[in-house]
């Protein structure tokens, strides 16, 4: 469920950037982020995305991101590749596997953060498919928000309940009239800056391969 922004900065993003512009910013950020192979830069970008999420008034559970990334990293380490860094309990932790794991883990976390920030419920993409995708992503976001409800002891029942409630809530939200948010110059400027910074970081890696840790 969307929370109303509690800080002035949070309100800024919600009120100064239309969903379409946010989506566009997100779409532009996607490749720049993904092509970023330097892990330190990636981590910084993820931090940026998470901050943007917080500024949009969303609840941030940093632990989630950490656990997701750590989990993916750990399991990548199981298949050793590359220079052995340290051997723990018979398992060799290799540089290649660690990097690969971190890249995948950060990719996952980063894209979650990015799409959470850039995809809004009231997004109108062109065409009927666009509209359907937007709607799908909207529901996706809602389901993800409610996923804690899934009870392992009653998987079917809890999922069933979740589906009923999300679909019902979604139907309501569709009907509600909504203020069209117009992008202000300030909002556009902020987003442009973010896109530029991320792309700049990527271009930087082209000029300076492996700048920090890649």
């Amino acid at each position, binding site marked *: 469920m969307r929370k109303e922004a509690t800080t002035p900065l949070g309100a800024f993003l919600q009120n100064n950037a239309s969903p379409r512009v946010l989506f566009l910013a997100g779409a532009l950020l996607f490749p720049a982020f993904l092509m970023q192979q330097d892990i330190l830069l990636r981590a910084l970008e993820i931090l940026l995305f998470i901050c943007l999420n917080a500024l949009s008034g969303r609840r941030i559970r940093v632990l989630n991101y950490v656990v*997701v990334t750590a989990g993916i990293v*750990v399991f990548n380490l199981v298949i050793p590749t590359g220079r052995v860094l340290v051997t723990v309990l018979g398992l060799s932790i290799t540089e290649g596997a660690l990097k690969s794991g971190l890249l995948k883990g950060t990719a996952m976390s980063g*894209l979650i953060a990015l799409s959470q920030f850039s995809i809004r419920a009231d997004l109108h993409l062109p065409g009927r498919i666009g509209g*359907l*995708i937007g709607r*799908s992503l909207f*529901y996706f976001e809602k389901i993800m928000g409610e996923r804690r409800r899934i009870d392992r002891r009653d998987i079917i029942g809890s999922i*069933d309940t979740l589906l009923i409630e999300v679909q019902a809530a*979604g*139907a309501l939200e569709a009907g509600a009239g909504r203020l069209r948010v117009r992008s202000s110059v300030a909002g556009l400027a902020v987003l442009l800056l973010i896109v530029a910074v991320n792309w700049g970081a990527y271009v930087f890696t082209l000029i300076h391969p492996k700048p920090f840790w890649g």
Partner: protein
Amino acid sequence: MTRKSTSSPTKRADLVAFLGAICLFLSAIEYMIPKPIPFLRVGIANLPILISLDLLPIPLLLLVVVLKVIGQGLIGGTLFSYVFLFSAVGSFASAFAMILFRRIFGRHMSLVGVGVLGALFSNMTQIVLARFLIFGEGAWLIAPPFLALGTVTATALGIFAERFVARSRWLATLRAAL
């Protein structure tokens, strides 16, 4: 088995979007399951399609697949990579197979069999694609365990799907409304 629908097109479109979203949610879960071999797919994300086989006409079913594939590409950020291609090929192969065999065998085959065949088609097409695109002859080496695991997971998913269809109030409501 064409069904005359009593619901509005908007409602059905919304349902398609919702089903697509469930697919995306399940593929997000699946992504978080770590895999030693990159192409080991559990195929959880195909469950909504499996469950909707009797619910929607073919064009709408395929639309759910489209939403699933594009949605996965957007969320996973894989829209410009091979992963997207594999996902698309696998998902459509699986959907075609499931639709086909559901129509052919009707009530003589439960969702388990349909799911297993869907997984078989999906995995085989992905292996062939892998052979030509990235692995070369090495693709055949992981084919047996890949297919074996696919059979096992598809059976488990099929059983889950059958149980879900039997118990779900959500589905019951949908069936009545459609």
